[in-house]
């Protein structure tokens, strides 16, 4: 199954060069980074760029989950899947295409690998070395509170960053291991489309992959333990996603658990139970996407006095320092929000706090996130539930996308923009966007939150017409209209009558 074509060889030459020779260690490093994923790369390059002596240790692939098994390959796949869906729906735009449009799955995956290989040069060992980072390929184990052993060599540090990332959780289901299954670490190695696929898990990865494979021609069933997809998101958002996935022909099994898996003639049968009702589904492949666990094993964190939990990861304070004051942690291994951009942001905090006596706090970050389904679901800040629990009165301004001209013209009317403000003010506390381009749209709201700009300010910002982001301005306009109380309206009418 594993395809080692030219693209793969190119990627591996960047992120795990076979002929790599580890450098002679320096006597002591300002920053020793364990893990060459997003957090590790960002911190190492930043620290080296600022003149620090920096080492980075990677045991597998530079670029980490994002480049190799996450954002990069998945978004390449999603783009092809979206195009396939658009071609199938082209008649609605007056464009006739031949019936039975064929998806060349092998070519789709080849494109993905080509683009991934191209992007991998940004994360290459050579680039790191060119930027002054000592790159060590091998296993890192703490030998004490100020040193790490790599391939028999001791690396001493003033500060260390643990950025080892996370790995997919493997559910304990009878027969699953024997039947075999895919995870995000293996699914992008496929070269032949599975005729049928069962996706376990209705979180971001499960939903994205279920929709992508369905659009690329697999018969997909998605099994989700919870009664809704994306359980952390708003009910209305999850409902829209559920309907979108149904339209794509995905068989949806919410509130359902897998009790047993068996395999006959390369067909995998999953026994399901939902509220006491038993059923079964059979497929060629199973994709497990039920969550991620931090990579804390094998690091000998005990020797460094770093406290950790196998599920919650490395324990850090708000400044990302571990229980060893010389050691920090960032990215998936320590954070609740396991996103590339969170890893990036947390790495920047560590560089400042560890090397320049910084006092930056993780809790001060405003972190948006997005699930790249179609429509996308993006969120930033507080949820209504959180606000209620914390006793913060909020009001939500909601604009359905079918009220936005550009969304109508684009045929992309599913979804909404919801912006939560503190009741009686225009202070933005959070937002959820469900739209074709929600991931792009959420950035404007995030910027407003970080800059302290309220809905009143957004209402003053001229938005290009027609754009889908106009939905945000419409929410701001709705806020302004809500300020027009009956008394103010009466006064306004009188003034206008008087000045007529």
């Amino acid at each position: 199954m594993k395809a080692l074509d030219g693209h793969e060889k190119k990627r591996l030459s960047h992120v795990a060069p076979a002929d790599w020779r580890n450098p002679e260690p320096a006597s002591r490093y300002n920053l020793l980074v364990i893990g060459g994923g997003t957090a590790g790369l960002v911190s190492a390059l930043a620290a080296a760029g600022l003149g620090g002596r920096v080492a980075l240790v990677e045991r597998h692939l530079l670029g980490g989950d994002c480049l190799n098994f996450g954002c990069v390959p998945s978004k390449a796949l999603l783009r092809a899947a979206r195009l396939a869906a658009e071609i199938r729906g082209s008649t609605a735009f007056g464009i006739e295409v031949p019936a039975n449009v064929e998806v060349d799955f092998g070519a789709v995956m080849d494109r993905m690998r080509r683009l991934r290989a191209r992007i991998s040069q940004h994360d290459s060992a050579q680039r790191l070395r060119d930027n002054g980072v000592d790159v060590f390929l091998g296993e890192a184990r703490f030998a004490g509170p100020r040193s790490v052993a790599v391939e028999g060599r001791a690396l001493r540090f003033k500060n260390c960053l643990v950025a080892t990332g996370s790995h997919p959780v493997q559910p304990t289901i009878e027969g699953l291991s024997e039947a075999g299954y895919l995870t995000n670490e293996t699914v992008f190695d496929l070269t032949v489309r599975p005729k049928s696929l069962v996706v376990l898990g209705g979180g971001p990865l499960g939903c994205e992959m279920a929709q992508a494979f369905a659009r690329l021609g697999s018969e997909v069933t998605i099994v989700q333990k919870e009664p809704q997809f994306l359980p952390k998101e708003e009910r209305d958002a999850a409902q829209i996603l559920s309907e979108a996935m149904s339209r794509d022909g995905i068989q949806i099994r919410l509130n359902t658990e897998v009790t047993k898996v068996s395999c006959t003639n390369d067909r995998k049968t999953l026994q399901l139970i939902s509220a006491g009702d038993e059923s079964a589904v059979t497929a060629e492949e199973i994709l497990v996407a039920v969550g991620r666990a931090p990579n804390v094993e094998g690091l000998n964190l005990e020797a460094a006095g770093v406290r950790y939990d196998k599920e919650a990861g490395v324990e850090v304070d708000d400044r990302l320092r571990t229980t060893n004051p010389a050691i920090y942690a960032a990215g998936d291994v320590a954070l609740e929000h396991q996103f590339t951009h969170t890893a990036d942001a947390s790495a920047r905090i560590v560089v400042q706090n560890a090397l320049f006596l910084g006092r930056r706090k993780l809790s001060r970050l405003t972190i948006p996130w997005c699930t790249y389904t179609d429509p996308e679901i993006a969120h930033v800040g507080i949820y209504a539930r959180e606000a209620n629990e914390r006793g913060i009165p909020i009001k939500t301004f909601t604009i359905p996308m079918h009220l936005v001209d550009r969304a109508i013209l684009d045929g992309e009317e599913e979804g909404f923009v919801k912006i939560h403000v503190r009741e009686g003010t225009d202070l933005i506390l959070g937002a959820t966007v469900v739209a074709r381009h929600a991931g792009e749209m959420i950035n404007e709201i995030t910027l407003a939150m970080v800059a302290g700009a309220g809905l009143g300010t957004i209402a003053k910002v001229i938005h290009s017409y027609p754009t889908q982001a106009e939905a945000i301005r419409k929410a701001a306009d709705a806020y302004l209209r809500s300020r027009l109380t009956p008394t103010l309206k009466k006064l306004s009418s009188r003034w206008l009558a008087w000045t007529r």
Partner: protein
Amino acid sequence: VNLVPESSRAGDIQSRVQRDAFRYFERSVNPANGLVGDNTRPGSHASIAAVGFALSCYPVGVERGFMPRAEAADRTLAALRFFRDSPQGEAPDTSGYRGFYYHFLDMQSGRRAWKSEISLVDTAILIAGMLTAGQYFDADSESEAEIRDLAERLYTRADWKWALNDEPTIRHGWKPECGFLHYGWEGYSEAILLYVLALGSPTFPLAEDHYRAWTSTYQWENLYGWDLLYAGPLFIHQFSHAWIDFRGIRDAFMREKRSDYFENSRRAVHLQWDYARQNPRGFRGYGPRCWGITASDGPEPGTRRFDGREQRFLGYAARGVPYGSDDGTLAPAAAAASLPFAPEIVLPTLEHLYDAVPEAATEFGLRCFNPSFQDEEGERRGWTSGASFAVDQGPVVMMIENHRSGFLWELLRRNGYVARGLRRAGFRGGWL
């Protein structure tokens, strides 16, 4: 534009719609045990919500002259005695457990049907019907005294604390095969009634905290220019109002928002009306006199061509707008049951229905229709449901009556348990 038709015709329409809807309960009952079919299709099982609506509609029928009082009392007694005598327990073929009942029951035996769940919200509707009957049948006769006694006994034996399963919110249901369904009633929905009854119970009352847990995901939204507690399907804004007069009484949330649930439903109805006028998905028929989207029957599930696009039709589904499922199916019963909230737009809608879609107005109540549906051959255009449903017709009878006379609201205002439940939920003001 004044859309209100002439008052005499308005009265005629209300009477006709109400009478037809009431006829559903006359035809769908098993007189031996008082159980009422979920719908008019042959072989339909009984639903406990259908019985709850029936028990609430019988007093209306008596007052409107649709049914003699003695017959209404007989039917009521048959149902109450059935629920008193039917087996309760953990076995999979009983009628209920812990004072609650399975969602669907066999019309003849009264035993659990379809491996359905013990349904908390449907039991609440059933019990609301029982309390309505107990409140209405106030005569000194032996049979009416028995109705009052049974209504009290059946309400007080429901173990609402058990229904929490040690969680902050009441669970959706329970099954002997798996225990509690692992999600609860939280966030705005038709379940206000459920919480009011659970809080008002003299035997197994919930603590006030559980009502707060239920409201913890409330979201006050400005949508289409309306400030409201949004929910897509209309029935959510109607069911609890069929029994409880929410005009002028407010819980903590509504006090903070300077609104009340009645006003909220009024806005929700107008929002649906606005949506139909805008008709963003371009469905046939939608307009100011043709609207009303809720959980309802619909054309057989599947994808069909419609106006050059692929349209997925949903069968029986929870439809809601402006950002829920909408496949062009309209539920005129949902519009009719909105009468107390917005008569100025409901009455013209009913008038239009009789003129434009007469096949949807049957002798057993209003039925769903979908003018946008066409069959695979493209020959049959439009779809009308082949069945009437109890959960559509019950609210129609009750809400038209509430609009005309406030009769059911007045009955339940006098019920001490309901008043206690409301107060413990934090409701204040108005008639309370």
